[in-house]
């Protein structure tokens, strides 16, 4: 069952120095119990996409397209209707758990605020029960409900954030770089919490990250973004076994690995194009080893190859 569908999403920011075309024509779907990974470098539009689903972008952002949830385009809902969806149907956890919690509120107050926003008449015992259940499901003792955020370590705070995210049993959880500011060992613990949640709750997870290793471990399907566009969309097995887009191929090769025989450092030469002033044709052409004439002239559309989507002239035209 399709839980959430993003169709032809376009996002522009108007700034003093011109319009930034942050996301262009992004489309993907998430099924129940599926984890979708969105990967790409900083500035590729992955977080913007994630935040746009919940309409959390700053006022200078213009969003066009459709985000279909429950047969409704939630981009057209009123602010009041949108507030009812946030946290209850679709929730989000952010990268930095240090700044996402209010330092002068106890953990339980965070939960109560969330619950009361959706059910003003909720009773204290009821709210406490919800908070305790959520905390226990991410491996935090319920005794710690009375603590303040500063009494938690980074990894524990991120667990609390996840608990807040899932407290009202949302059907979609957007995790925006949930482990980027954490150590590897703690990252591993948080990842196993997320994997666990997917199995035990009927939930879809949209995992936004730049770490291809993390995606390989938890995602079922993957959207690869480059300079605001979806350049490849495939299931995780196929993507890693046989990456089609040259960007995906190079990105996969540039991940530092722990195989001892492999001592060669690989990277993608050059850098992202300026999103205010996008060159004609393919956005990756200046860094692409397979560049053809057509890449300069025309922007590649999405081609379907073996049930996968790839935006590259190598596969058509």
């Amino acid at each position: 069952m399709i839980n959430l569908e993003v169709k032809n999403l376009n996002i522009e920011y108007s700034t003093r120095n011109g319009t930034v075309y942050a996301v262009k024509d992004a489309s993907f779907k998430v099924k129940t119990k599926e984890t979708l990974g969105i990967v790409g470098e900083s500035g590729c539009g992955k977080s913007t996409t994630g935040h746009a689903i919940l309409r959390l972008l700053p006022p200078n952002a213009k969003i066009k397209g459709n985000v279909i949830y429950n047969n409704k385009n939630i981009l057209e809902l009123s602010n009041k209707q949108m507030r009812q969806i946030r946290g209850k149907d679709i929730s989000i956890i952010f990268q930095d758990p240090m700044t996402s919690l209010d330092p002068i509120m106890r953990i339980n107050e965070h939960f109560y605020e969330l619950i009361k926003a959706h059910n003003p008449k909720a009773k204290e015992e009821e709210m406490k029960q919800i908070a305790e259940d959520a905390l226990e499901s991410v491996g935090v003792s319920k005794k710690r409900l009375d603590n303040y955020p500063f009494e938690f370590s980074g990894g524990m705070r991120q667990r609390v954030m996840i608990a807040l995210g899932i407290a009202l049993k949302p059907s979609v959880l957007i995790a925006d770089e949930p482990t980027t500011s954490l150590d590897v060992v703690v990252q591993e613990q948080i990842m196993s919490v997320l994997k666990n949640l997917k199995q035990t709750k009927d939930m879809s997870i949209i995992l936004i990250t730049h770490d291809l290793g993390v995606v390989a471990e938890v995602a079922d399907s993957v959207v690869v973004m480059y300079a605001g566009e979806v350049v490849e969309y495939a299931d995780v097995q196929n993507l890693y076994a046989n990456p089609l887009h040259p960007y995906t191929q190079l990105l996969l090769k540039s991940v530092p690995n722990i195989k001892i025989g492999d001592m060669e450092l690989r990277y993608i030469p050059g850098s992202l194009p300026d999103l205010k002033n996008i060159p004609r044709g393919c956005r990756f052409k200046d860094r692409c080893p397979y560049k053809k004439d057509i890449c300069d002239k025309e922007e590649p559309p999405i081609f379907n190859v073996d049930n996968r989507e790839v935006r590259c002239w190598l596969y058509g035209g």
Partner: protein
Amino acid sequence: MLITEKLGVGCMADNVVVVKNLKKYFPLKLPWLEAFLKKEKPMVKAVDDLSFSIKKGEALGLVGESGSGKTTVGRSIIRLIEPTDGKIEIGKKNIINLTENELRKERRNFQIIFQDPMASLNPYMTIGKSVIHPLEIHNIGTPKERKERVLEIFEKVNLIPAKEFFNRYPKQLSGGQRQRVVIARAIITNPKFIVSDEATAMLDVSVRSQVLQLMLEIKKEYDLAFLFITHDLASAKYICENIAVMYLGKIVEIAPTKELFENPHHPYTQILMSSIPVPDPNFKKKKIIPKGEIPSPTNMPTGCRFRTRCPYAKKECEDVDMSLQMINERHFSACPFF
């Protein structure tokens, strides 16, 4: 003591950096009455009796979680913070005994690169000025020579066209370019030794590899000794000849990189290795997930400091001391049972 001597057998002459029994204790703040009544002041043992040496043209990786004390090590060996005790030699010079004035002069021989390049560059200074600054402080060359030298270094770190970059401000650069500026500034005085404190942690995968490549190149070209502080074993693999794994202020394992990856001995090293995500959905690795998180250094476990999280902990672990045991000539580990 014994260990450093063993690690440096026969090649003491090449050692650029020698650290022996380094200790950094931070006094714990207590309410005044309690502080007055207590005879022994409680201390946070951030770095506890560390010894290692780094040869010319070689890099030592210092790997561990946040809170393991690796940054404290990096800062205290170049005296950005004063070590409590120990012996530090950089290029045959005893760093500990230098007066402040002497130390300032000596600083041209050792530099540090921090994690956040935006925070280490003055936003109101063009990057050219920032990089020229060390030459002015140490009074090297004439103003004209200085500028030429900066342009030359900019080319080397791939900030091309150098002349254009010279007049840019940090906010006009990308994260990777900023880190290149910081590296340029670190090598402009021709140092012998560079501490890199999580210098690639904030960068994207592809940019990270570019910056790692640059570090490899300058290390080779200037025959630099490197202390590469990171939490990422995979990055350390590319740069470092030797790797030391730290946990709660102690080195728990030290070995040549290849040896460490092929034959990790200490349970903590094994855990660190197994928690690195592998970009392959079919890779089924043996997962060892430790219990909980790093304990507070104010309340250190007795005996082995890792025993509270160790999956193989037993009764005896409560009274072992964490001295390094020899596994082979160049491989040492602090776990006597494994």
